[in-house]
């Protein structure tokens, strides 16, 4: 059985040491602004794509809020967290440029109120001044596809839906792709077809119920003394109205086109 080893509480233990910063960090910037031991008592940092040497790169103080930026050897402003100077939290959640969680800074006993004494402005720090201890930095390499960014800047991650619409059709398939080993490995394939939507113009109606379903004329039903019959359009959707001499050798009926219709008339001597 393990024997008890008496020591102080976790946060209490960290109040008087530089943790979660590295022991070699000075915690003082070039302008002499100091982050005292105990302002932060713990941290967990996992910015996606973060590199070595994560540090507090800037602290921006406004009248109402404080924003803490963390950076690394590659990117000075990798992620940030903002808290209110009025209602002081104990945790500062860090988010990256796409609002993805990047870690948390833990404070205690309202020690973040030290920033109330800082004048409004931006205070830059170097990595040698505020580098975090490696143990609080969780490597989170930006491998694989972590998200989709659209042209408008919107970001999608987690369980992502790709939906084809307005004439774009998405389908999936599994294909076997030969590997170097000679074996074939299944790959998911998303096929994209752009084939249009024949009735797409109806979607453009605003409001949408402005569109009224048309009733197309598909056939002309002709009723005459000899019976009735149907006329269907030809391959171009056209029907011809014409006269013939089939019923009578001197048919007086005349049909002629005008600009927007036909005139149906009888040939003969007018009464006037």
């Amino acid at each position, binding site marked *: *059985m*393990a024997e*008890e*080893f008496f*020591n102080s*509480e*976790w*946060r209490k233990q960290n109040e008087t040491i530089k943790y979660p910063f590295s022991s070699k960090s000075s915690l003082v910037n070039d302008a002499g602004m100091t982050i005292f031991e105990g302002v932060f008592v713990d941290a*967990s940092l*996992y910015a996606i794509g973060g590199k070595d040497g994560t540090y507090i790169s800037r602290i921006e103080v406004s009248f109402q809020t404080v924003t803490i930026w963390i950076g690394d050897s590659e990117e000075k402003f990798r992620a940030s967290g903002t808290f209110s100077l009025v209602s002081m939290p104990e*945790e500062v*959640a860090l988010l990256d440029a796409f609002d*993805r*969680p990047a870690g948390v800074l833990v404070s205690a006993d309202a020690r973040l109120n030290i920033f109330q004494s800082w004048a409004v402005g931006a205070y830059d720090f170097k990595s040698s001044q505020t580098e975090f201890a490696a143990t609080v930095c*969780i490597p989170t390499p930006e491998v694989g*596809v*972590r*998200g*989709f960014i659209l042209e408008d800047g919107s970001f999608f*991650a*987690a369980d992502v839906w790709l*939906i*084809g619409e307005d004439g774009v*059709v*998405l389908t*999936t*398939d599994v294909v076997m792709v030969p590997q170097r080993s000679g074996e074939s490995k299944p790959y*998911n*394939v*998303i096929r*994209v*077809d752009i*084939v249009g*939507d*024949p*009735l797409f113009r*109806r979607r453009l109606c605003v409001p949408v119920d402005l569109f*009224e379903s048309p*009733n*197309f*004329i*598909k056939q*002309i039903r*002709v*009723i*005459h*003394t000899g019976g009735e019959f149907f006329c269907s359009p030809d391959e171009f*959707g*056209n*029907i011809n109205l014409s006269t013939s001499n089939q019923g009578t050798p001197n048919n007086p*009926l005349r049909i002629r086109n005008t*600009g927007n219709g036909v*005139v*149906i*008339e*009888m040939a*003969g*001597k*007018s*009464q006037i």
Partner: protein
Amino acid sequence: MYYGWFNENTNRAYPFVKGTTANLPKEAIVDCGFVVGVLGDYEADVHDVHLESITRTGSNLFFQFIANSSTLFNRPILFTRAITDEDYVTEYIDSGPITLIGDTLTQTFTQIEEAACGEAAWYGFLTTGRLASLLTLLPGNGTLNFEPDELIVEPALVQNLTNSLISSLNVANSDRLRVTTSDDCTQIEWPFETGGIFVDARCLEGSVAFRPGFNVEISIDTTNNALLFSAVPGGGEGQPCTQVPIFEGEEPPEDSLFLEGGVACNEVLRSINGQGGPRFSFFPGTGVTIISVPESNTVVVDADLSGLVVCDTITDITETV
């Protein structure tokens, strides 16, 4: 006797926040850590993870942790120990609904995890220390329940991966615009529900390829690390010979050749004598009267010879169209 990380924690609140340890003996739990998955909906400065209860059934102890974000609340993590376990046993567990089967609490994955493509909403580990003093609080079967503000896990022990990566791809198609009929016409009956989203595939993981189909060209913009999908007539596999269904088994309705239910060009009267619409007029000339009967969609063309000098013998050639 040996000293170390676990041993240090036997006499302090860690891994819980100091002041929230309630009646739990400090040496019972010496370490833990949690990872919130991509669907966790967890915010480090709003939510927390806490120990909700410890249950003893027979010779087993169950430690139930919950997170108070909306998506994690009903998906606790349940760690199991035998009362005879030695010190510093560590167990890794995924979240999931918990049910009591006989004397045993069992964590199962159900439709909640299936909705997330099988990935646990969150997961974690627990290292227990000496359980003897805990057993004095639970000498027999029973449960120690804790308030939400008790036994809060140190925030730095929770890694939050919410929205941090693509866990899966799902592919679907929105319904095509389908032909409708006016209220006074017979409505088209579709053999399937229309107007929704038709799911083609769920939970695609691993390597995924995009293939250009009809009228598509896919290119890579290495500068912006982007995939570009361009609509190019004849691109990809060229022009389709038939309509492309948006889901397997899509068929046109009766009386239509087309999936959207539309009519073909030669099925609609578009012109008469080569003159198109949308308005087409019949003009009565000399000797002809044209009467419209809208209620029966009828145009009566009556060659009644009106206005003409008529001989004795009249030929009746009235026709109705």
